């Protein structure tokens, strides 16, 4: 299992005991931290395939940053994963929460082509602060129709909150999204879940710029259990 690390955002002043109106801003910073996690080593292979996608984000060259409450913890480690494809082409759905983020053979699960989803059950509802995704970073590629939803309904019929959607043409039929497509890197994609209350996390994709299949190496869900 990977070690998840929480780095302090600035120096915490332990001597600040008495809250006061003028220290509200610093109180806030003391209660928050920059979310960090173990970033896997860079490992790229093969001749790069052309990536032709509209509105593609600039390729990440560093770990993303998101400020979260300091009580935020990794909730998804070892949790049960189900999916629209119960018999992956290769690998197992359990890889998605096993903490291993390395690129390469043996580390990823490959799902069928077309629109597919995987779903993580956190066992109990939590205030979810962030979802961090590594689809497949052995080569530069972008996945189509990346949609991330949260809900307390395992069927995702009610109370669904979409926290990321780059399906610009509604090909997944969950509604058009305005988020941008991005190139997979070892830094993963960090999504702000805005402290949404939910037990289940569902992630969609619909093939990628190098092939039709869908892949996951790891998904980490961070939040606070009430």
């Amino acid at each position, binding site marked *: 299992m990977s070690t998840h690390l929480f780095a302090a955002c600035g120096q915490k002043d332990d001597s600040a005991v008495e809250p006061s109106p003028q220290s509200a801003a610093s109180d806030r910073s003391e209660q928050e931290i920059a979310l960090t996690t173990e970033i896997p*080593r*860079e*490992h*790229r*292979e*093969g*001749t*790069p*395939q*052309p990536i*032709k996608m509209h509105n593609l984000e600039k390729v990440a060259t560093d770990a993303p940053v998101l400020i979260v409450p300091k009580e935020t913890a990794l909730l998804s480690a070892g949790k049960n994963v189900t999916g629209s494809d119960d018999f992956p*082409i*290769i690998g197992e759905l359990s890889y998605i929460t*096993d903490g*291993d983020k*390395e690129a*390469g*053979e*043996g*580390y990823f699960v*490959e799902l*069928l*082509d077309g629109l597919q989803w995987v779903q993580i059950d956190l066992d109990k509802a939590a205030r979810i602060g962030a979802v961090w995704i590594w689809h497949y970073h052995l080569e530069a590629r972008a996945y189509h129709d990346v949609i991330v939803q949260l809900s307390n309904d395992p069927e995702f019929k009610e109370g669904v909150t979409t926290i990321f959607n780059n399906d610009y043409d509604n090909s997944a039929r969950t509604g058009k999204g305005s988020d941008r497509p991005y190139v997979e890197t070892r830094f993963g994609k960090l999504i702000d879940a805005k402290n949404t209350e939910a037990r289940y996390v569902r992630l969609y994709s619909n093939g990628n710029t*190098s*092939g*039709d*299949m869908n892949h996951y190496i790891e998904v980490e869900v961070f939040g606070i259990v009430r």
Partner: protein
Amino acid sequence: MNDPIHINRRSFLKSSATAGLTLGMPTILKSNPLKTASDEIRIGLIGCGAQQEVLYDTMKNIPGIRFVAACDIMMEGRLKKMVGRIRSAFGYRINHYSDAETMLEKEGKHMDAVFVATPDFWHAPHTVMALEAGCHVYCEKMMSDTLEGARSMVAAMDRTGQLCQIGHQRRSNPRYLYVLNELIRKQQICGQIVNVNGQWNRSLGSSSEKTYPEKNIHHLPDAATLRQYGFNRNISRLLDETELRKRFLNWRFYKALSGGPISDLGAHQIDIFNWFLDARPKSVQASGGRSYFDDREHFDNVMCLFDYDTPQGNARAFYQVLTTTSAGGGYYESFMGTQGTINISEREAYTKIYKESWVPSAEWRRLVDKGFLKKVSAGRPSGSPDAIASYESAPPDEYAIPGGIGLNSPYHHHIQNFFQAIRGQAKLNCDACHALESEAPIYWVNQAAETNETITFTDEHLRT
């Protein structure tokens, strides 16, 4: 264990030279040979690793094919994935084998073509086997880890009459064909090409050792299988399973299994030197070192210099492959002429064309007006005060290929050419004989680097 390849239970091919004697002429008759250009081409896959996946992802979008069988010694990981992908995409199951010889024996008469994407030291045996079994072959580059192996492929192609395409995919790339045929040969925009410069620089992240997760280690072939399939090759002691699996995953690191970076990466680009110059080099000088990966058998950085007498005159070509840094502009080939320079690459972004400042603009404006080129920008002086203007040539104007000639897959046109040749609709763009004419000098680079001696090529060095 010093035999070149301890191939299989029946020593099907003890050496490439005996291949023809083992099976004789291609007497195996197809049960239902391709009769018309519209018949489905029936395909087998030898090796189901990452490169075969790339080829598969490309060819599955080409109509008129049907996959018949696949083989790989890594059955749980690679073979299972390939079978699953084909079933998912086409809705049918293919037969699968751990052994190529068995697959060819049982399926050869039902297959028209075989794609070989195995480690380099298996290319020649697998290609010869498949040709002898009556199949046309598309084999990944480098043709073989040895010149003798590559020559055996040419001999088998000639002996059997089957087609054998080598995976130098740039030979079918419309951008390369346009630049060579239209800009260099017909419009002669470079003038006399006096220098060629090529490189493939990649970072440590693309050169790192492959590992396999412990929880899935049972996916990898066991020691007996890996010994049977040559991964103990040229080592006197029996390697243990851990060592063998490391060699299996990282076969490009070992001299007994591959030609190293100059073969893995350089082969594609040095092939372009020879193709574009329409000449074979007279000599090679080279230097290499284990500058970072001091525990690897092959050099991690290699630089080489070829000397040519081309139809236009003398020219030199410099090539470097760095597996330790990606700086310096990625990967491209640059053809530098007295009138202009063309930088070309599989990546459109690296493809740029420059006019020498002394060449009248009117001549290139004519090419722009006719649509052969598009103007990108006028030459920009550096403007820095440290330039000594009188010693510095004026900066060249930059041009580009109109429309870019982009590709969805760099492999598509080369595979399409192979299929068209099978249907009798085209000639191969890179058959084994022409590939070896171009590849032969590459086999001498490592030796030149090891000895620090210039190798002056004779017919014996370069014969196919």
